[in-house]
């Protein structure tokens, strides 16, 4: 009984680590998510379901996420309109996205400078937060998996 409970809890825990659950967050809550693992590099990808280049580069991220398992935290932030949450969930399923999946509930752009003052607000956009506090931006989409891997490896050696 006890063992099965443990297994149950274990399953629960592992599914929550790599869940497909989408959380709706404010920018303040997103900041908390980003700062929750300061010792790890965190790769934050901002995307939207209608953004063609975002959706096109998503498979690179999912492959890289597998490759850097436990070493780099991947955080996917959907900037879809709040009325589009069902579409976001649909796309998460379709692309088999997992991990930290959030939809940002911020109607304005005040938060953009807080995340990265050099970023214009145009997506696709990816930013790597390093444990030493540095942030490395990548504007526009990655052209290939190698392109993304190079970006991560340049700033963070395993």
């Amino acid at each position, binding site marked *: 009984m006890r063992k099965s409970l443990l297994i149950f809890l274990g399953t629960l825990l592992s599914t929550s680590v790599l869940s497909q659950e989408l959380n709706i967050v404010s920018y303040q809550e997103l900041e908390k998510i980003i700062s929750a693992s300061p010792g790890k590099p965190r790769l934050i990808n901002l995307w*939207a379901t*209608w*953004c063609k*280049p975002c959706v096109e580069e998503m498979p690179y991220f999912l492959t890289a996420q597998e490759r850097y398992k436990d070493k780099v935290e991947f955080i996917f932030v959907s*900037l879809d*309109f*709040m*009325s589009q949450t069902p579409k976001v969930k649909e796309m998460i399923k379709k692309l088999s996205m997992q991990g930290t999946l959030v939809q940002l509930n911020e*109607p*304005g*752009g*005040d938060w*953009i*400078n807080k995340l990265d003052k050099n970023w*214009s*607000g*145009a*997506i*696709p956009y990816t930013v790597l937060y390093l444990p030493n506090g540095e942030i490395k931006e990548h*504007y*526009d989409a990655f052209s290939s998996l190698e392109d993304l891997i190079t970006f991560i490896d340049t700033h963070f050696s395993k």
Partner: protein
Amino acid sequence: MKKTLQLASVAILTVAILTSASINGYKVGDTVKDFKLKNIDGKMISLSEFSDAKGFIVIFTCNHCPYAKAYEERVMALDNKYKSKGFPIIAINPNDPVAVPDDSFENMVQNARKKGFTFPYLMDETQQVARQFGAARTPHVYVLNKTASGNEVAYVGAIDDNTEDASQVKHTYVEDAVNALLNGKDISVTETKAVGCTIKWKK
């Protein structure tokens, strides 16, 4: 030898200036270089033609981007409200139609007809104007104030603070900027940011 060095340094300086202009673009207070772009009616348009204008609301926008679409009605309302007061909307599509077929000239014409655009909708075919301005996304607005020395950038950024829902807007940044210029007052917020679509540059 000395001359070659001089030439080389001039060349380096020129490249540096050109690059910095294209990376940074116009900031508040900069004077905008005039341009000549094709409007949806086939005519070429320059800012200098608007002799009665007191300034302009230049907006880099396009057909396909949902954020740009979300603002189409509000852009028309701005033109309706401010053209007669001397601040017409000048909409510019900077996207490469090869990358986004929806943003082709033909589709601009169609989109403008369908929505009933009351303002020029220009095609920035070489993307030179977008680069000069430093436009990074659609929509991206520059409010220009006509002064004795030229069209000066007075505001750069978002139209307002709620893209999805016009009824929930708290700050009408562009309106506030134009109203301040019309009333000879200082603009309280001269720079904002908003989420948008990347400009699709030619490859």
